[in-house]
């Protein structure tokens, strides 16, 4: 009798697990997003889940870093660069069944710009001053000044239903988009599950019925879970995990050059760090390859102010003299700057394993030039607060990247820029960045950004360390996955699962 019951239970179990695993893609990542509103929550894990799968923008960015149509079918830009006219895709519906048209686009842009919603994305589209709905499938934006990066910026602005324009709460709880997957359930610190949206505009896609994002804080646990088949995909894994999973049976590690970078930031209002010669000396004391070997398990390349993945823009590091380690040269520069004796530096560290290790190696390398660096490892909330308030001498952190140089530079280095926490203030650089933003001639833009890179690499407020590898590991059942250099998971729509 007992045996019989056990057999029934076994049967039931295998039936249940079989049914569930046949169509569910199990993804494991470290933390739960802080809310689901795509205009409000901009942290990386939220982008990965919500912005990539539930929503779409007018444009999209491909793995090859090209800006391509998404909800907009095509667009025209006026000769003066001040008017953009978008033709919208037809036959698109939201997850709640309502149709998509130009009013939704207009409402979404207004929502991002509205003070009540308080979206951090507002500055990305701040040049848009006029929105005009021409017909249900055509919309026109007027700009206050030419803004070359607008099309790539729009890829990050999720289009929401017009009804949500003034609603602060609804989208935080139940997102409604036009993307391939619709929201099903959120158990905070447990999982978020999305199900296939039957009304998706591309017939036959997506091919999996359900995607479940499990929140698993331990890297070691995620790694074992992938190996044992508990999870099918680990997006954006750290270099040590990638190295350990590479070559394991059935596991594929997809890699691409990261657009984001690790950095040492310097506060230009703190003591000797205000002197460009001292910042150049810091660069000369660093051995970037040693840092990459030690802290990134060799997975990364030294880089300048732009990612080498931006092949049309980035200058090679061989152009930057200060990238060759030169302790004597650094000491000479420090002496010329009038710096004598040990320089006491408090360095705040973003709480990630790679940044912690980078900080330890940097601490040792800077010691050779007479910098006495004290490391302060902080919890994320405290780090962000101090970072925003410029409460640091130096910090070690990681910045995300983009497809356009403007997004790397303008907000970070322009005087008073929204993330210029270094208080860097240089009129020459401001002029170069204005030129890059307002000039539409590609050659002239290139010249401006070349000059900006030359200046920023050695004497800017950031010592750029490395562009890592972005790695996503997938299990044996998954095919059709393509990694995106922005870390987005937009290719889940093409993924299929085999038994």
């Amino acid at each position, binding site marked *: 009798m007992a045996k019989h019951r056990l057999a029934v239970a076994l049967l039931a179990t295998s039936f249940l697990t079989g049914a569930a695993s046949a169509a569910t893609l199990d993804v494991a990542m470290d933390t739960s997003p802080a809310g689901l509103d795509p205009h409000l929550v901009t942290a990386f894990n939220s982008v990965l889940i919500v912005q990539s799968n539930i929503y779409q923008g007018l444009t999209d960015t491909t793995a090859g870093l090209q800006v391509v149509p998404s909800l907009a079918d095509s667009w025209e830009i006026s000769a003066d660069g001040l008017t953009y006219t978008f033709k919208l895709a037809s036959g698109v519906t939201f997850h709640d069944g309502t149709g998509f048209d130009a009013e939704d686009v207009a409402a979404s842009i207004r929502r991002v710009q509205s003070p009540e919603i308080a979206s951090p994305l507002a500055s990305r589209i701040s040049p848009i001053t006029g929105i005009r709905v021409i017909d249900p499938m055509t919309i026109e934006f007027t700009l206050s000044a030419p803004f070359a990066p607008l099309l790539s910026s729009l890829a990050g602005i999720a289009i929401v239903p017009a009804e949500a324009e003034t609603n602060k709460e609804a989208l935080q709880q139940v997102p409604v988009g036009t993307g391939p997957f619709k929201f099903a359930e959120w158990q905070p610190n447990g999982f978020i599950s999305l199900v296939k949206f039957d009304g998706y505009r591309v017939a036959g896609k997506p091919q999996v019925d359900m995607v479940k994002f499990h929140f698993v804080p*331990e*890297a*070691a646990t995620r*790694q074992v879970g992938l190996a044992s088949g508990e999870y099918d995909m680990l997006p954006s894994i*750290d270099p*040590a*995990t990638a*190295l*350990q999973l590479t070559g394991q049976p059935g596991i594929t590690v997809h890699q691409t050059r990261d657009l984001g970078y690790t950095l040492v930031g310097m506060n230009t209002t703190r003591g000797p760090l205000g002197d460009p010669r001292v910042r150049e000396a810091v660069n000369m004391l660093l051995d970037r390859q*040693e840092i990459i*070997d*030690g*802290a990134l*398990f060799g997975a990364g390349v030294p880089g300048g102010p732009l990612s080498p993945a931006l092949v049309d823009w980035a200058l090679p590091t061989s152009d930057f003299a200060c990238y060759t380690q030169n302790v004597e040269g650094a000491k000479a520069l420090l002496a010329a700057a009038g710096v004598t004796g040990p320089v006491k530096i408090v360095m705040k560290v973003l*709480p990630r*394993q790679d940044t*912690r*290790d980078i*900080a*330890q*190696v940097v*601490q*040792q390398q800077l010691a050779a030039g007479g910098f006495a660096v004290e*490391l*302060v*490892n*902080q*919890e994320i909330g*405290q780090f962000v607060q101090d970072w925003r308030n410029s409460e640091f001498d130096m910090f070690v952190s990681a910045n995300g990247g983009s497809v356009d140089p403007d997004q790397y530079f303008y907000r970070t280095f322009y005087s008073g820029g929204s993330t210029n926490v270094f208080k860097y203030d240089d009129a020459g650089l401001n002029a170069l960045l204005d030129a890059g933003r307002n000039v539409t001639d590609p050659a002239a833009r290139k010249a401006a950004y070349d000059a900006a890179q030359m200046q920023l690499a050695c004497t800017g407020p950031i010592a750029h360390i490395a562009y890592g590898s972005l790695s996503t590991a997938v299990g044996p059942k998954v095919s059709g996955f393509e990694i995106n250099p922005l870390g987005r998971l937009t290719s889940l729509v093409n993924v299929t699962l085999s038994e």
Partner: protein
Amino acid sequence: MHSLRQNKLLAFALAFVVVQVVLALAAPWLGFQDPFRQIMSQRIKAPNEVNWLGTDQLGRDVLARIVWGARTSLFSTATAVSLALLAGGTIGLLAAYYRGWFDRIVMRTMDVLFAFPILLLAIGVISVLGPNAWSAAIAIAIVYTPIFARLLRGPALVLCEAEYVLGARAVGASDLRIIGSHILPNLVSVILVQTSILLSAAILVEASLSFLGLGAQPPTPSLGLMLSEGRNFLLLSPWPAVFAGIAILLLSFGFNLLGDALRDTLDPRLRDAEAVAQ
């Protein structure tokens, strides 16, 4: 016959603890490698002649970092337990001696702290103070204070009712004198046993906190931190994580065994503290 075996156990436990403590305290002078020195060409090496326990992800000697880590751990926990003994012991003694409303209010306040799971309260305290070795020590001191208060109040209550204490009170001896010369000396064995056992538990708590990133911070050598960093590359090289775990076990084991042996020798009827101390 029985007591001979007990003495042997006590001697063994004492020797075990003393060896570890001396190793840790004297680490800077014992010729270990520099625990901070990074050699990138020697990263994540298995045990070999130069690095007896291998190297970590930045090419630092694991043996040196373990010995220094034990030092960090002992400093933190010894500070924490001493503070807790001082505060909790005083509270427990006074509560037992004065009884009444004082006892009630003080012990209910201790109950409030005691109601938190230890790790949770410690995490909260550290979040406020900022993560580092000192915060961890203070957090552990706070969570252990009510434990000491409860552990000492019980036996002290019994002593306060003893004939000679009542006698001393009757002839008008000062409170301080009664507590100092009549009650406290009789609590020495309780204190020794429980301190030893709580040290053992505190070592585990400190390691848990460091493991969660809330204790000593890099580049400080710390056992919990080594384990926490080492687990990220366990398949490449299990050595740092495995040896750090064993070191935590040995440290904690030593103090627990010592407490156990002391109890057998001094006061076999004492109750355990460890049920509440982790």
